[in-house]
């Protein structure tokens, strides 16, 4: 009984996790950008690009990848689960959440590519 209760909570969390990754990406990107723009720490240029820009792009892609992994798991799950109404709708919610979160992550990270990282 207790395990069932816990898995219920985790499954809800899993269904919404795309946007949680988005939130994490937002916090990490802003923190990294703020830290390197304001502290004495410096990064070397990489391939002619400011090091900070490259670092931000890497962080950005890692989070996009994380959402990709979540969606891949979600697809796997919706193949395995029995076809009960509730399960189908929850799985569909999971897909919508992942796809919209990925698009939103691309959206707000895009300025990294066009603006100077500091100033």
């Amino acid at each position, binding site marked *: 009984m207790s395990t069932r209760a816990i898995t219920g909570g985790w499954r809800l969390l899993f269904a919404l996790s795309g946007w949680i990754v988005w939130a994490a990406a937002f916090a990490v990107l802003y923190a990294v950008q703020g830290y390197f723009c304001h502290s004495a720490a410096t990064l070397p240029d990489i391939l002619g690009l400011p090091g900070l820009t490259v670092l931000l792009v890497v962080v950005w892609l890692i989070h996009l990848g994380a959402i990709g992994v979540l969606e891949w798991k979600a697809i796997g799950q919706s193949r395995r689960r029995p076809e009960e109404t509730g399960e189908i709708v929850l799985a569909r919610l999971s897909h919508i959440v992942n796809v919209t979160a990925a698009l939103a992550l691309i959206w707000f990270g895009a*300025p990294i590519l*066009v*603006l100077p990282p500091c*100033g």
Partner: protein
Amino acid sequence: MSILEPASRGAGAVADIWWVMFWGALVVLAIMIVLGLYAASSRPWHAGKGLTAFILVGGIAWPTLTVLALLVYGLWLGEALLPRGDSREPYRIEVVGHQWWWEIRYPQEGGATLIDANEIHVPAGRPVDVHVTSADVIHSFWIPRMGPKIDAVPGYTNVVRIEADEPGTYRGQCSEFCGLQHAGMVLRLVAHEGDGHLDHLERLGGGSAEGADAGAGAGAAAFAENCSACHSLDATQPAADPGPSLAGLSQRAFLGAGAIANGPEGLRTWLSSHQSLKPGNLMPTFHHLEPETIEAIAAFLEERGR
């Protein structure tokens, strides 16, 4: 003070995008009202078919494309307004916010600085980088017709770039709430043709040539006793406990950071009743002074503050 009457290229670009957004917003609002009224007018349209597409197009595609265009333009415009490189060398001034007045500092060649208050004199047609900070609480430096505002934050110096297209006088006002007299922190920007701003600086510095000593006479003595602890008459020397510098006082259009028009009458009114003109300002009332003393101080300031 109006954003809609821009007097610089930057402010002009913002005013333009405002009008685009204004008309766009009216169209969006009209569409939403019409849709809402039509949907509620009790005419069954269809039983759910195509409504998902309706949500996808109206709720997702439409707003996404609209804000995408705005975002791209906004970032581009932001870059253009920021104090980045410019082929022309920007003129540099420093502004320090105080409760409740503005200290204006003109760095001079050789490291000296001329200090003025509440009025800024700059050349027209040349970018001006304003280095803004605060001596106490947070204020915000803003001259609407010139463009972006920037906060004056204690411990930091922020830079905002302005440029007056035409010579003229432009009003500004503190726009971050800073206490009792937040409303009483008016600022005047005077943009001069050619090198006119240098004349102002010369007069400001010229007063200093007479030295920080008050000189002789009853007015001078009264000034020294009552005023000089906070106010300096020397643009190169701030007072010990700085209130606004009074160097070049008679050139200013206003007293008390916009509280009253400058002039023989205004000066006397300010000296005798500034706490009712600008309640809560940090200058003591000096109610104990005889009217003759006030008159002597006023006369002294008129003579020395040229």
